[in-house]
């Protein structure tokens, strides 16, 4: 037991001595050390910045998805990959309102359901004020719950509005301000296209995920689903919410089965629509994020490799420059292991310093990124990324420092002391 403690103490002393010597050596050759570690610095800085950006983006997207609700299911028409409907026009495969009749009775895992009708962008008028780029959508009452879009003023679109095809609308607060409506604008009427609508409520805006593209302001107006047919031929999709995350897939299958029947798709023929869940969307996002991480990881790996070769080169130079020193150290009693440790630790310390500077620069980059793009305000470097960077830098040091260190340890002291 005491022997083990003594050995451990001896090793710790050797370690401490080596670190001390290494720092002295690095300090003596400042310029060379800086140039050598640049590869490592760049590698670590980019890996931390990329990971930080991805983590931030992911947090943002998750946030957004949570505002949707994770039970949300999107239903929209699409051409199948194969079969005769492959080249069908969008118009032939469109949804009709009756495709969804009685869907709730036939799909027990579905909690809520709302058809959505998109009729395109219009210009809205109120007295002499007007606003372009107004997205008009027809909804059913369940939409508010599924999409988590409550009204801050007035009331929601109701079942009665739909049944009686009322010319009523919900507007978003930005549009109210743009058209200079009263703060309490309930009861006022606005003109959209050639139709007049009475405002019954103000709907909260969605937290927007606009990546870089700021462009023109977009406004939203919601009208009863059936009212859209008065404005033209709407493009119909649907949103549903399952009874829980665990039955989302069940709900998707039920909806699929139900729609195949109502759309008269024969057995064996492919679907002409898609039923997607937020979960699936998240999976897709995650796999893209993973791919970006892997690609970035590859680039960073190459950069660390180049940095490592630089380290190896400089360590070889150091060994041949200090051949006499190595000879002397061996003559006064340094074992092979002591020389090996000294040079190995010098390489690792060099890499760690590179890693430290790299993390610092990565932090600056991260702050710059979040400064430029307000969407990425949740960008931060997670602790595991810092640990990962350091262990990478350390492994590079050990891997590429090993060869020069072995070379140093194997030197014959007599030859080394004779070296010019």
């Amino acid at each position, binding site marked *: 037991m005491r022997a083990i403690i*003594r050995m451990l103490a*001896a090793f710790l*002393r050797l370690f401490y*001595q080596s670190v001390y010597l290494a720092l*002295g*050596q690095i300090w*003596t050759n400042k310029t060379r050390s800086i140039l050598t570690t640049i590869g490592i610095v760049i590698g670590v800085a980019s890996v931390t910045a990329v990971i930080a950006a991805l983590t931030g983006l992911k947090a943002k997207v998750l946030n957004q998805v949570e505002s949707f609700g994770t039970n949300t299911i999107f239903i929209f028409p699409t051409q199948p990959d194969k079969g005769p409907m492959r080249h069908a026009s969008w118009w032939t495969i469109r949804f009709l309102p009756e495709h969804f009749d009685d869907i709730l009775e036939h799909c027990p895992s579905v909690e809520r359901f709302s058809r959505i009708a998109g009729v395109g962008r219009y210009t809205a008028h109120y007295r002499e004020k007007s606003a372009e780029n107004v997205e008009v959508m027809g909804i059913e009452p369940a939409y508010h719950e599924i999409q988590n879009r409550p009204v801050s003023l007035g009331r929601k679109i109701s079942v009665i509005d739909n049944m009686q095809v009322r010319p009523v609308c919900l507007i978003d607060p930005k549009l109210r301000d743009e058209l200079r409506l009263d703060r309490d604008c309930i009861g006022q009427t606005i003109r959209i296209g050639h139709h007049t609508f009475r405002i019954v409520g103000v709907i909260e805006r969605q937290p927007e995920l606009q990546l870089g593209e700021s462009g023109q302001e977009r406004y939203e107006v919601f009208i009863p689903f059936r009212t859209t047919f008065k404005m033209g031929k709407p493009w119909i999709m649907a949103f549903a919410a399952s009874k829980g995350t665990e039955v989302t897939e069940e709900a998707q299958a039920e909806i699929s089965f139900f729609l195949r029947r109502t759309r008269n798709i024969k057995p064996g023929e492919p679907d002409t629509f898609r039923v997607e869940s937020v979960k699936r969307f998240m999976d897709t996002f995650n796999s893209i994020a993973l791919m970006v991480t892997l690609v970035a990881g590859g680039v960073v790996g190459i950069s660390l490799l180049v940095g490592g070769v630089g380290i190896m080169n400089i360590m070889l130079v150091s060994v041949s420059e200090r051949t*006499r*020193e190595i*000879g*002397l*150290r*061996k*003559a*006064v*009693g*340094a*074992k*092979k*292991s*002591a020389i090996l440790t000294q040079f190995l630790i010098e390489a690792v310390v060099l890499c760690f310093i590179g890693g430290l500077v790299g993390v610092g620069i990565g932090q600056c980059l991260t702050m710059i990124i979040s400064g430029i793009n307000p969407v990425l305000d949740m960008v931060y470097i997670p602790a595991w990324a810092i640990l990962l960077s350091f262990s990478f830098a350390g492994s590079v040091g050990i891997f590429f420092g090993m060869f020069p260190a072995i070379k140093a340890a194997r030197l014959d*002291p*007599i030859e080394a*002391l004779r070296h010019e």
Partner: protein
Amino acid sequence: MRTSQKMTEKAEKLIIRLQEVTRIYKVGVEHIHALDGINLELGENEYVAVMGASGSGKSTLMNVLGCLDRATSGCYELDGQDTTKMSDATLARIRNERIGFVFQSFELLGQLSALKNVEMPLIYSQNGWWSRHMRAKNVLERVGLGDRIKHKPNQLSGGEKQRVAIARALVCNPSILLADEPTGNLDSKTSEGILDLFDQLYREGQTIIIVTHEEHVALHARRTIHMRDGRIYSDLPRDQDPAYNTTMQEDAREEPE
């Protein structure tokens, strides 16, 4: 060839015993006998000069005695232990504990202070920070550099550098001090200072081996070994060495004037 004569009166305890030691280098197909059957015994507190022309094998003998090199055949006992069968790691420890080297070109590390240079061998043995510091400081005082411990080698004169190197060799209390041409890079006045230091260390009980080709350096030793072609050619105490007697006679002749 003269018969070798051993210094038995002082050698109560043997430190070095070489028996039929050879060292053969292979250069291509040729075998070079750098050491060719060396027999040598060295007692405690001896002061020996090893002389010989270059190529006589004195450097090889030095390397073997210092455990930097291994004998090809024969037996080398240091402090009663046979070193020929020892592992590299054990030899490193022996060098650390028993042997102090002094080189012609000092071999100080430029970026370290005199004190740190002297502390260096202690790093490789079991010594704490404070004991290292104190031992190095004491030994520097012993060689007369107590006021120079913070100086870097480039702030020291040649003689002072060699004194630091001697201090470094002494810091582990070695059984033998091996000096390879210790005055080779110094002017004659500084050389005398260094040789006086060796005399002082000898009087304090240190066993010293100096390898040199300079007659006046060898005259400080109490025993002189001449080497030629890898063999010991003569091994005489100082008062029997013709060179010493000649010098003494010259001195004696000069004195009355």
